[in-house]
């Protein structure tokens, strides 16, 4: 798993490259937390175009980050999910708290 970031205006764009499962969850959690806290962004976009695999462990990681950023009033958006990720997001209601947006980094 590789977590890449780019700041544009006050938006932090984060790209997850690789597979998000139990093996990579802890690293991803820490990497996301670190860049989200350092960035001082007004909004965050997590781009999943290069996420080749994700199971429901990934939902836990994303919801955990949502809770942390919600306390700071920073919204998180999701872009470019795979078909499978999209289905998991829909069945968990994730988009209600982290809406999907169009666009890429």
């Amino acid at each position, binding site marked *: 798993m590789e977590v890449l970031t780019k700041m544009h205006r006050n938006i932090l764009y984060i790209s997850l490259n690789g*597979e998000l*499962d*139990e*093996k990579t969850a802890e690293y991803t*959690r820490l990497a996301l937390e670190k860049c989200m806290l350092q960035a001082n962004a007004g909004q965050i976009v997590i781009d999943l175009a290069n996420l080749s*695999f*994700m*199971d*429901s*462990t990934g*939902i*836990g*990681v994303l*919801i*955990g980050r949502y809770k942390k950023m919600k306390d700071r009033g920073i919204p998180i958006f999701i872009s470019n999910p*795979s*078909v*499978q990720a999209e*289905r*998991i997001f829909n*069945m*968990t209601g994730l988009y209600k708290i982290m809406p999907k947006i169009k666009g890429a980094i």
Partner: protein
Amino acid sequence: MNKKIINTMSMTIPAKSENESFARAAVAAFCSSLDPTVDEISDLKTAVSEAVTNCVVHAYQKRQSNDDIITIACELAEDMLTVKISDHGVGIPDIKQAMQPFYTTVKDGERSGMGFTVMQSFMDKISVNNNEGGGTVVTMQKNFTKEAEKVSGE
């Protein structure tokens, strides 16, 4: 009428999180003779990953030990795959409750409680049972699109 079994595969792996990607890739590769679609393979890999995650995280409590064994047995009967993923871990006291969406026993962790729901959604059939001698057996089935349907359906 019973479908004719055309291939079988069985493997055992220690319940380590690093084996999850191997396990889902191995099951996906086993089905390659059916010429599955990309979506079918992604669905299957996701469901297998959920079942193996349950073994690693819940059945064997993240011990990551070589002594904690997960058995994955696959059977191809014509266009239908059966995957049986079993462990000898702590077992599930109330299977019905465990299969409820968002149910998780992990209080302080960031777990979604959606593992079984994802398996149900991504496979055609799933059953969860107690394993003989302790632990859990998850049996999942998926029907793959026949070649003729792929051509006419697209």
